[in-house]
């Protein structure tokens, strides 16, 4: 943009000064709330001693990171984190788009509003409570499945909290149930924003509903899909702590399939209370996410510049 030297650039700034003014409050906020505290990244490399102050504490290099890589669990927690979050991204996106499209098809306004409210309900309940609700289903003695459902099917009661093999499915279902509604509302906003003329024209041309969805709806909300997916990829190393800790009730035998980076870090910190190690974990998670996003953003921008994040 500055290919013809500085003068045109400043002229341009003048032309856009109103737009820049609009951004000031937001930018100032992000600087204070997000950028100033980033000096805290140094904590990950320090042995914090408050008597010396954060900046005055001793440097310890990568010692705070060791526990994330050196132990036998490193492979398991990394694998679990990526597999779960990877499948969550795909499942959530597909389900939420499907529901959003369907919701947009409900002609009765009152029903549509009712459905939409109800679908968002699970999102409002905290994970701790969800953990108890799941327990009421799965409890060995008083749970619904063991008490009512399995006998109907002639299956012996199952000790759910000691059988790792069921948990990848249980966690996936709980996760989908809890967060699909939220995502759905975002996609719905994008769908509603689509100009109706497109559909009218398509109908006149005799396009079926399915064709319209494929040729109009999905391509037009593609920017929103892309952005949501990229953001999810950026957080792929972070997990919903409540889902992996509260819902399985922190049950030991389930750990090989329920342990993710966040729960592992939490357990270590419960006994240690070391902010150096938690900063290290956070930095590691951010860094991986950052690299993955840069990569996927690059791929997206090769295909369609407008859909890219930046």
């Amino acid at each position: 943009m500055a290919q013809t030297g500085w003068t045109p650039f400043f002229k341009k700034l003048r032309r856009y000064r109103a737009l820049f003014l609009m951004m000031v409050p937001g930018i100032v906020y992000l600087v204070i709330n997000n950028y100033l505290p980033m000096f805290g990244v140094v904590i990950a490399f320090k042995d914090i001693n408050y008597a010396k102050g954060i900046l005055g504490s001793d440097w310890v290099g990568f010692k705070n990171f060791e526990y994330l890589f050196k132990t036998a669990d490193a492979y398991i927690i990394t694998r679990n984190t990526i597999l779960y979050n990877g499948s969550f991204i795909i499942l959530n996106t597909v389900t939420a788009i499907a529901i959003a499209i369907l919701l947009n098809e409900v002609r009765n306004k009152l029903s549509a509003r009712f459905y939409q409210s109800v679908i968002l309900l699970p999102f409002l309940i905290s994970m701790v409570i969800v953990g108890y609700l799941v327990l009421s289903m799965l409890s060995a003695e008083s749970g619904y499945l063991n008490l009512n459902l399995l006998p109907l099917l002639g299956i012996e009661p199952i000790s759910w909290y000691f059988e790792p093999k069921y948990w990848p499915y249980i966690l996936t279902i709980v996760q989908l149930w809890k967060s699909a509604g939220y995502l759905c509302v975002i996609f719905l906003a994008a769908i509603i924003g689509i100009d109706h003329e497109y559909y009218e024209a398509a109908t006149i041309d005799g396009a079926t509903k399915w064709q319209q969805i494929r040729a109009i709806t999905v391509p037009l909300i593609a920017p929103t899909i892309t952005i949501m997916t990229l953001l999810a990829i950026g957080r792929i190393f972070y997990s919903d702590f409540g889902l992996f800790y509260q819902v399985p009730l922190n049950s030991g035998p389930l750990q090989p399939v329920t342990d993710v980076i966040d729960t592992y870090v939490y357990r270590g910190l419960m006994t240690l209370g070391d902010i150096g190690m938690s900063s290290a974990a956070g930095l590691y998670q951010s860094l991986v996410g950052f690299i993955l996003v840069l990569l996927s953003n690059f791929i997206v921008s090769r295909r369609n510049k407008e859909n890219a994040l930046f």
Partner: protein
Amino acid sequence: MTRKPQTVTLLLSVLLILSLLISACSSSSDSGGNTGSSDPAASNDGAAAPSSANGKEMELTVAFIGLGNMNEVALVQDEISKITKEKINATVKLMPIDIGAWAQQVNLLLAGNEPLDLLVTSSFLNFSSQVAKGQLLPIDELVEEHAPTIKETMELAIFHATKVGGKSYGVPSVRDTAADHGFVARKDLMDKYGLTFDNVKTYADLDPIFQKIKENEPGMYPLVQRSQTNGIAAEIVRGYIDTLGDTPGILIIENQDLKVVNLYEQQMYKDALQLARKWYEAGYIMPDAATTQESNNSLVKAGKGFSYLSNLKPGFEAQEKNVNGYEMVAARFVDPISTSDSGTGFMMSIPKNTQDPDRAAQLLNLLYTDRDIVNLIANGIEGKHYVDAGNGLIKAPEGGSNYVFNQWQVGNNALAKVWEGNAPDIWEQMKAFNKSSTFSKALGFSFDSSPVKTEVAAVANVNNQYKAGLESGTIDPAKLEEFISKLKAAGLDKILAEKQKQLDQWAKDNNVQ
């Protein structure tokens, strides 16, 4: 447009913030550096002069765990301030912090520079890391100067138990510092089936009792656990060991030595696992004991549990009756012991944030010596938060009280008035009980896990995977081998070696043989 000056001010304020921030960081590191490096005697010099005179009136902030009902804490605070203003020319600000917010808020308070003069600390709440991170002040000289009589209020060994690297960082509260161990059960059912403790000398002898309950009380589990982490096997061995902060690197009390051993490789532990497993398979223990969220008290109260194992103290049965709603009886199998965390369980410390260490120490002194202050903080205001119940005892007023404190954590509880339902001489009993206990050789040692934190994090994970299952009898004890080998792979031996090293050093510093 009027917008332009606004942008300028905004930009200016950003710059201002940045410069403030930089100065704040550097100044805090500067001032902090001094206290950290210079020896405490020298830094006291400046403060000593005003302290004797207590020239300027000031407000001292005291943070403690706010359990119970703290709605009228301000009234209590004003009453206490009346006394302290006269005695040390300072008012008091009581700052109850909820247990749910404790770890976060205290950590942040100590990271910043907010005023905080006295703080409840505990080995269960990161005491050793607070010391290691320089968040607490050494208090030996301060206590010597301003509170010389505190050490007479408790066992000397307990008083000295807060030392790290040869310096004290807190004063233990006066409470039940020792514990004996045993079995607690519902009295009505014991009587109903004619069960007694006559032939019950040890845990294994409980079998017939459980069997009787199992046969006659359908829907009730003969033995429940206090929580996930207090497994049956863990309760059985607890009376014989000093955990030195965490398992499995422990001392065996009766050996009276300083040799750190792996609990999980002891015969005693293997036997306890077998016993727990036997009970589990006999149906005495709940199938989901390892994951249940219900406490023993709610299970007993709901008629679903009959008994549990626990650490005990004088008056324990009376306390449990209140909570469970049933009369309880106890059998004591293991004589009282005092272990390395008996002293550090609850202490009062002076944090680095204090505005005046001397004045803080003077207030500390009052919490152990002034009957009125102790009574105010423990029981509230007479006539409002408690009333006389005769016989020197007190009870709650009609309609309840808006100040209910948890006695055990602060100061000299023996000075506070005793509640109805307890023996009037409960504190005499408690004192004799504490004195009679077998003291661990390592009493006063605290383990600093930071040199082996990578291993501690990995071991915590393995522990979580097996411990609750094994100790509740849910998992076959045959898995113990697998558990131990995974612990070793996670670096257990390194932790044990580090613990032994620190213990040896500690013994050398404190002339313990």
